[in-house]
């Protein structure tokens, strides 16, 4: 309310030039206050009155979304979706010619104990399921899942796909884990038959893992270094397991390793230390070193340690983020990130700091040796949190092919 110069008898007087208009507070009418308080009370009473309806609706929505996505509250079902369905498919039918089906498989029909055993040991060799022979690449989940999780998962798989009604208790998983701790992975279907004494029909013979024979020169190169070079093992670990931003080499494809060594040598990939190391390597030495690391079967030493959001990392790896034109990692690097030779290296069990730093290097242009700049384009769409998330998720995956526990025990023992 602006107070003006009072009118009336003085209104014809010259207005006061120094007068400044000012405001005064008017009194708020009491019915307005009463209405405001009344509305507030009504709102609070409504919230209080309907609190149970809200909780019920929330539960309904959760149940509806679980029904839509095929998830239930069964922990084994959630684990199956997260860990198994990328390869064996959500319906357990596998992929023709590549991934064996679980539904109708005679191995799964044996019940949860065999399922748990295979989960913890992995398969690294040919296996016949029904009428098809698959080249087994099953990772070992012993290092990735706890006893409780393996119990829930094997119970779920055996009940859903094998018609079993047995539940597999956590204590049995612990006993099983202790019993098979050092056995390494199954060398295919025949190996499973022999070890378990069960009959799975005519299974293909597993090829024996030949210990890679190294010439003394290459062995020296890997383990003691020579002349101007430091030993490979002195940074990458005796088993090529890597650490922090020194990458894991065990199980990378030989062609991929040779390509990287060539790229270090001719400057297509920049890394000062590696440039010194490869400077005097001959082509045959590169090939031998690559064959050695490609043949190693080593359990994962990578852990999610960058504080990334694992759920976001899983989403990027499995489904990508099409709002940013980022394809799923696994669409090129293979289910579970086990690599598609020779262009797409395995990502599972890679050291988190290495994966994240390489993504940053692709994005910043420091690394640009991929065909068609595929990784450069993808990495530029990921922000720092996404890079850490996906690197942490990949580090949490079990390695493919499965590592053998005895290998880690042999750390420091050189062939």
């Amino acid at each position, binding site marked *: 309310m602006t107070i003006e110069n009072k009118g009336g008898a003085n209104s014809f007087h010259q207005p006061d030039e120094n007068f400044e208009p000012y405001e005064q507070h008017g009194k708020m009418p009491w019915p307005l206050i009463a209405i405001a308080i009344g509305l507030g009370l009504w709102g609070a009473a409504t919230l209080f009155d309907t609190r149970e309806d809200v909780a019920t609706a929330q539960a309904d929505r959760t149940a509806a979304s679980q029904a839509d996505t095929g998830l239930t509250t069964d922990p084994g079902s959630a684990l199956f979706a997260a860990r198994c369905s990328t390869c064996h498919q959500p319906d357990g039918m596998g992929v023709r010619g590549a991934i064996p089906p679980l539904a109708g498989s005679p191995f799964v029909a044996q019940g949860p104990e065999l399922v748990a055993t295979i989960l913890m040991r992995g398969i690294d060799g040919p296996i016949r399921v029904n009428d098809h022979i698959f080249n087994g690449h099953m990772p070992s989940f012993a290092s990735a899942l706890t006893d409780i999780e393996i119990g829930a998962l094997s119970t779920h798989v055996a009940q859903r796909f094998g018609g079993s009604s047995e539940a597999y208790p956590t204590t049995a998983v612990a006993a099983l884990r202790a019993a098979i701790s050092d056995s390494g992975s199954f060398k295919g279907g025949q190996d499973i038959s022999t070890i378990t004494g069960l009959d799975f029909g005519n299974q293909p013979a597993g090829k024996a893992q030949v210990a890679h024979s190294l010439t003394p020169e290459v062995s020296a190169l890997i383990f003691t270094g020579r002349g101007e070079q430091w030993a490979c093992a002195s*940074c990458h670990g005796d088993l090529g397991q890597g650490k*922090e931003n020194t990458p894991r080499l065990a199980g990378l494809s030989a062609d991929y390793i040779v390509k990287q060594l060539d790229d270090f040598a001719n400057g297509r990939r920049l890394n000062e230390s590696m440039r*010194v190391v490869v400077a005097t390597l001959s082509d045959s030495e590169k090939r031998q070193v690559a064959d050695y690391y490609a043949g190693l079967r080593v359990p994962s030493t990578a852990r999610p*340690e960058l*504080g990334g959001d694992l759920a976001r990392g899983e989403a990027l790896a499995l489904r990508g983020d099409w709002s940013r034109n980022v394809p799923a990692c696994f669409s090129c690097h293979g289910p579970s990130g086990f690599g598609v030779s020779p262009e797409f290296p395995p990502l599972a069990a890679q050291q988190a700091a290495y994966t994240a730093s390489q993504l940053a290097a692709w994005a910043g242009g420091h690394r640009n040796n991929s065909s068609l700049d595929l990784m450069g384009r993808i990495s530029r769409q990921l922000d720092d*949190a996404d890079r850490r998330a996906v690197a942490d998720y990949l580090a949490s995956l079990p390695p493919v092919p499965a590592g053998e526990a005895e290998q880690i025990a042999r750390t420091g023992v050189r062939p």
Partner: protein
Amino acid sequence: MNRYFPLSILALAILAFATLMLVIAPGIQIGRHSAPAGLKPYTEQEQRGRDVYVSQGCVYCHSQQPRSPDQAPDGVRGWGRPAVAGDYTYDTPHQLGTMRTGPDLLNVGARLPSRDWHLTHLYQPRAIFGWSIMPAYPFLFEEKSAAGPEDVVVALPSQYAPKSGVVIAKQEALDLTAYLLSLDRTYPAPAEALRDDGYSGPEDAK
């Protein structure tokens, strides 16, 4: 200004309060935590190497305190998880540092576990990184015509190697390298450890 007595009391009270909050309270807070299970005390050689680290002033260019991801991308650089107070249990005095002219070194033993790499790098950083501004430490090494049976020969690219003979690491260089390789705090931080959570609370810092 003649009320000296209340002024002195006030000054002493402020000092006492600061000492309580900045020295005594953190001391009690840290004192309750024991050394993390994964942390080993320094060996005698590593301790000698630590003395070399201190005497060469490495701390002026290298910090020893990786930060949390929301402060700096230290994890992505391979510098390790954010440090916790317990990581410094055996460091007296600590070598936290304030400058990052060079990389953080608290986990250098994890990301660069090669003794031979460190010897080359200490003798001549430019032999590996052409752009490095780190000083060379040739006085920790000596040139010999031939290596003895106990001698550790430094691997060097030909343009940095002496015209004849070999470069041998002196004991100081070996000690310093042993200390650098012992810098590995990549064991998981204890759950109740005192840590730097950056700007996020403990519940966000997973």
